[in-house]
C-alpha cells in the first residue's frame, strides 16, 4: 500500500468514477483495490459504511461527536490494516468488529475516568444497575411526533445504561437487524451466548421502559 503524504492523494472525490467502481463491486474487491493503492476504492468503502458505523458507535456510546471520531478511527484502522485483511469473514463483520472494540474501549475509558453523566446520577450507590432517570412526562403531548421523539430519546438513554456486553448485541440485533450468526462473529462469541445476552438486554430494557410500553 502506498504511503500518503498529502491530503489530496486520497481521492475522496464526491464524484466517483462510477464506470470504474460499480455499485455491485464487493467489499472484498474494494479492499483488495485499496491494498493495491486505489484510493477511490477506499473512498467507496467509506461511503458505504460511514453512516452505519457512526450510528452503531453512537448507539453504543450515546455521544455523537465521540462516535464520529471513533468511526473515523475505525476507517483509519481498516486502511492501515488493509494488507493484513483476510477474506475469511465478510467485510461488514470485520469493520463492525473493529468498531465494537473501539466503542467498548471508549466505554471502559469513560468508566475509569468516572465521567459524570446524566445517567450516572441515577446509578445506585451499591453499584447496581442504573435506573432510567427520565420519568415519563404525564402531561398531554401536543404532537405525536413529540411522543415518538421522546420515546426514542428514552430508549437511547436506557440502552446507554446497559452493561456493554448486553449493549452491543442488542444494538446489532434490534437496531441494525443483523443475524445471530453475524453478531456472534462480530463479537467473537457463540451464537447461544448472543441469544442469551440479547434476551437479558431486552429484559433490562423492559424494566427501564415499562412506562412507555
Amino acid at each position, binding site marked *: 500500500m502506498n*504511503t500518503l503524504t498529502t491530503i489530496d492523494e486520497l481521492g475522496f472525490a464526491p464524484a466517483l468514477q462510477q464506470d470504474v467502481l460499480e455499485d455491485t463491486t464487493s467489499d472484498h474487491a474494494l479492499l483488495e483495490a485499496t491494498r493495491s493503492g486505489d484510493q477511490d476504492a477506499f473512498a467507496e468503502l467509506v461511503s458505504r459504511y460511514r453512516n452505519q458505523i457512526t*450510528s452503531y458507535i453512537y448507539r453504543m456510546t450515546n455521544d455523537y461527536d465521540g462516535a464520529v471520531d471513533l468511526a473515523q478511527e475505525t476507517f483509519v484502522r481498516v486502511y492501515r490494516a488493509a494488507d493484513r485483511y483476510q477474506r475469511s469473514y465478510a467485510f461488514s463483520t470485520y469493520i463492525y468488529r473493529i468498531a465494537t472494540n473501539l466503542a467498548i474501549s471508549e466505554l471502559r475509558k469513560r468508566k475509569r475516568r468516572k465521567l459524570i453523566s446524566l445517567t450516572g446520577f441515577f446509578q445506585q450507590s451499591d453499584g447496581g444497575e442504573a435506573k432510567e432517570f427520565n420519568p415519563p412526562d404525564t402531561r398531554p403531548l401536543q404532537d405525536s411526533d413529540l411522543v415518538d421523539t421522546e420515546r*426514542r430519546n428514552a430508549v437511547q438513554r436506557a*440502552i446507554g445504561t446497559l452493561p456493554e456486553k448486553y449493549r452491543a448485541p442488542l444494538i446489532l440485533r434490534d*437496531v441494525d*437487524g443483523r443475524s445471530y450468526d453475524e453478531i456472534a462473529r462480530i463479537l467473537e462469541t457463540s451464537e447461544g451466548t448472543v441469544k442469551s445476552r440479547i*434476551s437479558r438486554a431486552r429484559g433490562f*430494557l423492559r424494566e427501564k421502559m415499562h412506562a412507555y*410500553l
Partner: protein
Amino acid sequence: MRKNTCEEIRRELDELMLDETCSTAAVDHLRECGACRQFHEKQTKLRQIVGSLGTVAAPADFDFRLRARLASESSSAATHFSLFEWSFVRRGLTAAALLIVFATGAFLVRNVLNRPAGGGEVAKQSAAPEVRESPRPAEAYRPVMPESPKPTVVNQASNKRLQGNRTERSTQLALRNTRTLATLDSASTGAEVINGAQPVASSAAFPIDASSLATFRVSVDDGRGNAKTISVPTISFGSQRLMQHANQFAPKRVW
C-alpha cells in the same frame, strides 16, 4: 409442563425478527395464554421502539476529516520513524559508551587486585642488593644438576613470593616488578665456548640454576674481546611445581 411450554414459546418469539412469522404452535399458544400474549405485545412494542432509532447519519465533513486524519497520520508516522531511528542510534551509542567505561573499569580493578601486596617491601629490598642467595632452593636442586655455576646475586624476596599462596599470574607479575634483582650475571664466570662449526650435540650442555631466577642474562664472548649480553625474559621451568615435589628427589633431611 405449561411453564416449560411458555418458556419455549417466548424464546421462539424472542429469536424471531419482527417481520418474521411465528409458528402455528406459537400462535395457538398465544391465543390461549394471556401472560404470554401480554409478554409478546410488550416485547414487540419495545423492539419496535428500539428499531425506530434507525441510523444516524455521519456528518457531511466526515470524508474530509478522514482524509485529513489519514494524511496527518502518515506524515506523523514518517516523523515518528525518524525519531525512532534517532532514539535507536542514541541508545546504541549510550550502550557502547557504557560498555567502554565498564571494560576500562574492570581492567583497572583487575590490575589493582593483581598488584602484589608487599610492593613497598620489595622496593625496599631492591634498594639493598646485598641480600645473599637463599640456600634452600639451591640445595634442593643440587642433586639433580651437574656442576652449575653459582649465581652471584639472587633476590630472596622472589623466593618468598614463590612459596606464597598466590596465583601463578600474580607471581609472574611480582617477579616482573623486581626484574632488576632477580638476575643472574654469568659474564664474570667462565663458560664453555661453543664453536660454530662444532655440532651442538657433541658440546656439553651447561646447566642453569633457574630456581631463583626471574630474568636470565647471558654474556657471550666471541674470544676477541667482543662480549654480547643476551637478556632472556622471565623463564618459567615450572619451578613452583618442582619445589613442591622436590622432596622426592632431594636427600632426606635437606629441607
